[in-house]
């Protein structure tokens, strides 16, 4: 370029310098706009270990009061204390309920009663495939502890009659509950984390937070979207690979995503894998063609309970249930790496990122 071509601008040397400064900053400011904008959003993450899981809260809002994280962690701890059957605490309501099995009604807090009601509801709509009175069987298997081992078959047969959600009596008026037979045991392991995530979200929202991800042991609950309006992108763990390797990406907006899979918690014995999703009808880990089920709902308590429910129901009955429920979607992955999705899932919110998997349209 010849300097003469600048003549038409009629710039004096100072003007020219200003022009160049302006031009240079235009290049810097405009072109990488997308990078710059998102770079300014640096989410704040805090972690803790509660309910036997990693709790990871990521907030995308600016200028947040970080005391909110501790309030969330304390709240989740409070829920654990009430719901756990693994350690005795003065607040332990489910332990009290279990200890009074076959004898007395136990007074419960509103939230414990609410979770029990939800648990029974999922028992009903799955004809008992989901059963919060699975406790006696879960104790036999000890999965997820160092003592995991195949229980004696006789013992399983003995305990099976104690598993029946219909024998959990709920007194709606007085918020009391009773297990009708001695030895019965409620275990909220398949639903309590979902409830805790919902409660965590309430605290964050009350603190004015509009963009966040709550990750409670792999259960995801999102608040809003990202600050730029785009949806959160959540990876779905590849059931056949190491942690952190995804087979698909799901976009969420104010929704929960919970997965249940055979890869999650298991132990090996006699050359066979025993996973943690136990069929209340048989007392053994369920065996069907599925390796993972992921559920998308608004409330995390529903996604949590449904991921186990639908896994136990299997592909066909599970899909039927999902299609009947409002605002509920599901992704099924089979051992043959076939992927089935419910009718509300389209390419805008779901994409496979591993070519080994094949999306099947209809069964």
């Amino acid at each position, binding site marked *: 370029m010849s300097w003469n071509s600048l003549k038409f601008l009629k710039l004096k040397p100072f003007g020219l*310098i200003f022009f*160049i400064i302006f031009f*240079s900053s235009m*290049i810097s400011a405009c072109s990488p706009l997308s990078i710059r904008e998102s770079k300014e959003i640096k989410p704040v993450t805090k*972690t803790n270990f509660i309910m036997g*899981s990693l709790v990871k809260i990521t907030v995308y809002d600016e200028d947040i009061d970080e005391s909110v994280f501790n309030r969330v962690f304390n709240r989740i701890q409070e829920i654990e204390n009430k719901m756990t059957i693994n350690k005795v605490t003065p607040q332990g309501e489910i332990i009290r309920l279990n200890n009074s099995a076959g004898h007395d009604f136990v007074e419960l807090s509103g939230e414990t009663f609410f979770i029990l009601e939800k648990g029974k509801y999922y028992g009903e709509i799955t004809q008992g495939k989901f059963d919060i009175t699975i406790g006696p069987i879960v104790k036999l298997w000890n999965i997820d502890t160092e003592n995991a081992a195949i229980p004696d078959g006789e013992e399983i047969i003995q305990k099976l009659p104690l598993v029946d959600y219909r024998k959990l009596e709920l007194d709606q008026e007085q918020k009391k509950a009773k297990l009708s037979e001695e030895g019965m045991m409620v275990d909220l392991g398949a639903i309590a984390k979902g409830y805790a995530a919902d409660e965590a979200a309430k605290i964050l929202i009350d603190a004015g937070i509009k963009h966040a991800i709550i990750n409670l042991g792999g259960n995801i609950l999102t608040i809003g979207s990202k600050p730029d309006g785009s949806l959160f992108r*959540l990876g779905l763990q590849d059931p056949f690979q190491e942690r952190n390797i995804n087979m698909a*990406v799901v976009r969420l907006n104010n929704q929960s995503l919970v997965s249940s899979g055979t890869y999650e918690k298991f132990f090996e014995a006699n050359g066979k894998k025993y996973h943690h999703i136990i069929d209340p009808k048989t007392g053994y880990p369920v065996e069907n063609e599925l390796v993972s089920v992921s559920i998308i709902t608004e409330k995390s308590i529903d996604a949590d309970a449904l991921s186990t429910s639908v896994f136990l129901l299997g592909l066909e009955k599970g899909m039927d249930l999902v299609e009947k429920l409002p605002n509920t979607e599901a992704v099924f992955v089979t051992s043959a790496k076939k992927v089935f999705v419910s009718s509300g899932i389209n390419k805008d919110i779901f994409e496979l990122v591993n070519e080994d998997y094949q999306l099947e349209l209809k069964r």
Partner: protein
Amino acid sequence: MITLKKGDLLIILLLLVAGIVWFIQDSLRSDTEGSLAVIEVEGKRVQTLSMDENGRYKINLPNDKSMEVMVENNEIWVLEETVDCPQKICVRTGKISKPGETIVCLPNKTVIYIEGFANTNVDDISF
């Protein structure tokens, strides 16, 4: 008619170069570049490691235990010979490098994650 002297040209050139350098730096500082690995034990941040500083680092765990991690080529992982938990899930997790990925050790209440910006491939993982 403007006449440019040597000094003017020099200033113009300097400003142009400055602008270009600014632009290039800006576009490079994305994703993994300059990201941090955060190590938290029992909810407390005990260490942050720059992902572009290769090395072997010791992490103190509860009950006077410890483990070591390796940072190399923008990846971080737990060294198997340095952990003594039963399942070694942290080791089996392998290497992580991107925001959203985590290495979790439940028995030692320890998590390692990559701190990043919002424009990542995935924001978190459901498992």
